[in-house]
């Protein structure tokens, strides 16, 4: 874990309302793994007070990329960080995806900004496993396919790709999925994850999911990020330390 002031090299609006922030942070970029995250101090001032967590979106040498949209004050400030300024980042945090294992095809399932961790994931796995990406969103503006491979799209309003949600799209492709030795890696809004969980249990697919919740510290000292465990009844798990990636069967979503 490092806290460092990373120079901002670029902030790109890659799509309408989706930003990519490129910072220079070799200490972190050289060790961070797909699915891990950073906790970013967006301002030196007392408001916004807390750091904001972001998945590592991509890594390229000494560069780290974060992907986000403007949700509130923190992301608004981040989107307007001028080139040459510095941002205070803390990381790498949490456990990333477990990329190993006895599967041939990594199936990415993402909704909206849930796509954020997968460019780095894809880069890391390319050449090692086959990759299939199922990407959903409310309408075509919400489908983020930046730096992903073999993408199938779903939109709820049918404005792009399959009309329906991304889990329905998985259902539609069930034969394809069953025909391969797959492991699912997912990130997205809670309703999507709930549907995905049923889908995975029903079809006995192995699935790792990156979860989100409100966080204060990001590294295990505030106990703010609790998530109910399926296996351990006596205590909550911590999203920041025990996750954010969990086996979808292990946590209450």
């Amino acid at each position, binding site marked *: *874990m490092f*806290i460092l002031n990373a120079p901002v090299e670029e902030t790109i609006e890659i799509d309408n309302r989706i930003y990519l922030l490129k910072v220079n942070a070799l200490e972190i970029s050289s060790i961070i793994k797909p699915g891990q995250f950073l906790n970013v*101090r967006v301002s030196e001032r*007392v*408001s*916004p*007070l*807390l*750091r904001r967590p972001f998945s590592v979106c991509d890594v390229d040498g000494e560069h780290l990329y974060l992907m986000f949209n403007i949700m509130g004050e923190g992301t608004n400030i981040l989107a307007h960080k001028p080139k040459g300024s510095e941002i*205070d980042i*803390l990381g790498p945090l949490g456990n990333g995806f477990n990329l190993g294992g006895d599967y041939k095809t990594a199936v990415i399932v993402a909704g909206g900004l849930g796509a954020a961790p997968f460019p780095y994931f894809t880069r890391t796995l390319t050449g090692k496993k086959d990759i299939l990406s199922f990407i959903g969103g409310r309408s075509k503006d919400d489908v983020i396919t930046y730096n992903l491979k073999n993408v199938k799209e779903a939109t709820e309003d049918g404005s792009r790709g399959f009309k329906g949600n991304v889990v329905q799209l998985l259902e539609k492709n069930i034969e394809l999925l069953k025909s391969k030795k797959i492991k699912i890696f997912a990130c997205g809004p809670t309703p999507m994850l709930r549907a995905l969980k049923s889908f995975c249990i029903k079809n006995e697919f192995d699935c790792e999911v990156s979860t989100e*919740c*409100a*966080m*204060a*510290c*990001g*590294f*295990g*000292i*505030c*106990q*703010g*990020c*609790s*998530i*109910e465990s399926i296996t351990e009844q*006596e*205590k*909550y798990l911590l999203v920041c330390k025990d996750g954010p990636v969990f086996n979808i069967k292990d946590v209450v979503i």
Partner: protein
Amino acid sequence: MNIDLSVKIGSLTLRNPIMLASGTVGYGNEISEFTDLNKLGAIVTKSLSLKPRKGNPPQRITETPAGMLNAIGLANVGVEVFLKEKIPFLKKFDVPLVCNIAASTIEEYVECTRTLTREETIKAFEINISCPNVREGGLIFGNDLNAVAKITDKVRSATDKPIIIKLSPNVSYIATFAKAAKENGADAVSAINTLVGTAFNIITRKPKLQNVTGGLSGPAIKPVAIAKVLEISREVDIPIIGIGGIMDWKDVIEFMIAGSSAVQIGTLNFIDPSAPGKIVKDLEGYCEKMSVEKISSLTASYIL
């Protein structure tokens, strides 16, 4: 110049006034990656109860203007696991360890203290009578003067080590509670714990915290905390540990001027876990520049 940063809390001497607040550093391990614990005044553990506690269901925290609300609900490993699994790590450091105890009954306070006092690594106890997020046994001890008196008295009989009573700010006159603590044998008080607050999601109309209310901490509460420290300082002759919204060395000086012998850093640890170490250095710089030989001379140095 030879700067003396040391301060005294009853019979306990700290190498400097910077303590880490209960519930904001777990049991010390994560934060030790960012701040050299051996350079700090003391660390206070997350509140311990006799048995492990799961704490409140999520969502447990939310941000507010210049502050945050938490309703962790005293999630902790319990006294037994603490002694077995957490103490060995803490033993490695040369920093006074203060054990914070939270309980639902007076007996539980006594039992916790009695068990823990045998562990020599523990140098003092901080008694949390003021957690706003747990209401068990029907009592909110922190708002009940008799309960505070009684708990202090009973815990006093259970240990020879210094006892610090952590006071609730959610009362009309905090000084009366400090007085009850003193009269029943407390060596010091700490002020303040969090203020009761809440926030609603205006779309779902539900409280943002599953527990409905939570404790407000961070810079937002600093003026209230300093007023409480001043109130106690003017009315009761007892060492005060100032807590609430400290973000830098200037805030530490302000708390000391208002009457604090030492201070605790809470929410700031989440934002910058390297801050406590930096603040110690900055305090030294300040004392040098202002020719303050003993930082303890700042305590209650207000000019009203």
